[in-house]
């Protein structure tokens, strides 16, 4: 037998003996307890950080340990492999964003089959997904509200530049349809151009700038329904609107990045809709904790609207209190509105 073959067999034999020994030892010793709840954030991102803050706050308030895990990228593949790794650790309940709502269907089934509890946050899962709750902003309602507010700011007259985010994000078609249906109500309002397929702030800036340059003074309002597009548009429009003699282009965005809030505070742009990421994390963990205590969902699937809040120059420094009050109200309703008490 060659040297390599001897080494290979020796390696495999040693590995088998060592692993068997470890397994026997572990079978006779109690393992350290792991956190029952995992809140998974797909990537380092201001929205995700705020969701994680909600989960940490819930853990502090309730005393239930919650592990907050951050993934590497917002793809279904990355989500799947990280959640499956966490599943093997022994955590009992998972809250995560179904980054691809249809794609997460298999993962929800897998977790349910393995006896784990789940809550989707940040987006609604696809119909038929085996998860009892989604805690999120109502995508359609938020896009509708944003479009209504923009039309109102424009005096129900003028041309809109509609800036969408990633075309592979399942929420994008919902937002697009909602905006178009609002605009269709007002005969003097039209969408002059829709730009999309934007995944980064840099790309968003390039596309918005190109559209504004190409359209000249035709654009009366800009609507953005994604985080990256909102930040890019708000900073661009703030520069534009500050110029002496420039036409004031109206703006409604989504998400409350500090740069967007600064532009609103300075009066350079009009409005953004603040989501409730803190509530997404806090409410999701509260639901999982209650279900671990034996509370049962009233029906197979329920959507918990964590709400969104219009932020303008008038309330830019006080809106956070409104969001926290909204979260407390929703948490207070969980046991009556969404859950049934444990059976004795």
């Amino acid at each position, binding site marked *: *037998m060659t040297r390599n073959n001897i*080494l*290979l067999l020796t390696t495999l034999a040693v590995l088998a003996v060592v692993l068997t020994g470890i397994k026997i030892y572990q079978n006779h010793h109690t393992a350290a307890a792991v956190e029952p709840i995992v809140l998974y*954030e797909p990537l380092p991102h201001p929205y995700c950080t705020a969701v994680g803050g909600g989960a940490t706050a819930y853990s502090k308030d309730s005393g239930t340990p919650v592990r907050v895990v951050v993934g590497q990228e917002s793809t279904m593949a990355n989500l799947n492999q990280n959640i499956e790794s966490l599943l*093997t650790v*022994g955590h009992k309940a998972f809250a995560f964003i179904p980054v*691809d709502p249809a794609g997460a269907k298999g*993962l929800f089934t897998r977790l349910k089959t*393995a006896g784990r509890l789940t809550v989707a946050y940040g987006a609604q899962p696809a119909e038929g997904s085996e998860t009892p709750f989604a805690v999120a902003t109502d995508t359609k309602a938020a896009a509708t509200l944003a479009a209504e507010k923009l039309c109102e700011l424009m005096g129900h007259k003028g041309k809109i530049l509609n800036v969408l985010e990633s075309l592979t994000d399942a929420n994008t078609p919902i937002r697009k349809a909602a905006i178009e249906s609002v605009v269709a109500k007002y005969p003097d309002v039209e969408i002059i151009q829709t730009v999309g397929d934007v995944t980064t702030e840099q790309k968003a800036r390039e596309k918005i700038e190109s559209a504004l340059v190409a359209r000249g003074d035709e654009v009366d309002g800009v609507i953005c329904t994604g985080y990256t597009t909102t930040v890019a548009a708000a900073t661009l429009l703030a520069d534009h609107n500050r110029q002496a003699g420039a036409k004031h282009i109206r703006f409604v965005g989504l998400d409350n990045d500090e740069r967007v809030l600064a532009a609103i505070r300075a009066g350079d742009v009009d409005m953004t809709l603040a989501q409730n990421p803190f509530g997404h994390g806090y409410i999701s963990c509260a639901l999982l904790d209650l279900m671990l205590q034996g509370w049962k969902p009233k029906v197979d699937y329920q959507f918990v609207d964590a709400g969104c809040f219009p932020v303008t120059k008038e309330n830019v420094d006080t809106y956070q209190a409104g969001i926290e009050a909204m979260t407390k109200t929703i948490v207070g309703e969980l046991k009556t509105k969404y859950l049934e008490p444990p059976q004795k």
Partner: protein
Amino acid sequence: MSNIQHPTSNIQHPLAEPRFGQTDWVTGRTLGLVMFAGVLTIIMALVSPNFLTTETFFSQSRYIAFYVMVAMAQAICLAIGDMNLAVGAVGSIATVAFGLLVAPDHAHLSPWLAVGIVFLIGPATGLLHGLIITRLKIDAFIVTLSMMFVYMGLRSGISGGNAYSIPQSFWWLGQGGFGWLPYMVVIVLLILCGVSVLYGRTKLGRWLIATGTNPMATHFSGINTKRMVIIAHALSGCFAVLAAIFWASQSGNAAPQTGDDWLIISFAVAIIGGTGLKGNLISPFGILMGAIIFKLIQHALVILKINDNYSNTLLGGLILLAIVVDRTRERFEKKQ
């Protein structure tokens, strides 16, 4: 399943030379990977009491099988001295096509029929890449980079970003198994055996490796190297489509985002597995070990509660470390 290398290659491995009448099952390089994977496994078992369970094996081995397919799609091209940057994009377009064919609100064909049709996308795209590379004499890097954008645009345009539902009757392939042994793992092991035979025992395999070692010399030896390039790209496409079908079944849907992160996986696993970046070297068993190491590292990052924000940095560092250790060991053995 030892490393397959052309005899004219100047990378000769002392441990790879079998004694008369004896055959090495693995080369020294692959043996090093086995040892590294073994050490990682022991560390994981010590750290996580839930690691040595059938649940972990079932869950993680499916990813390993999937990574092997993605890496094979790259390794086949690397072995002839090319690269395929469109691995993920081919997987993506195949996924969208599969979704359109099987989704109840679209063609609603039988999944088996759909698999047969979609599988043709692999060789078709490979043929296209190969023809452009060889006939128009354009570098594979440029061709596959351009085609990557073409396919990514097509998938977004056709799907509009929407994922397609896969009938639950097809989930068994990616989610089922013989007890704790996933079907995917069995299929991938059989494929790896086939690839080993192709490269180790057939003329075609040797010609492919020879093309990667020295295309000019191979050409003057009477081998049609252009045809070898086309065949390699066609095979690469087949593996990319297989990976897409596996993933669709495992995730229970056909999402157009499929493939977005395959490029890094394909290079990382293939290179850890000992595939030569400049051609002439491919090891199916090495790629399997590469996939195991890649998955173990990723699993470790989650289990060990390493600061998540730095996990990509650590992953990259550990992959580099694995390769450096392997190359150092190789140089040390050469000196002996």
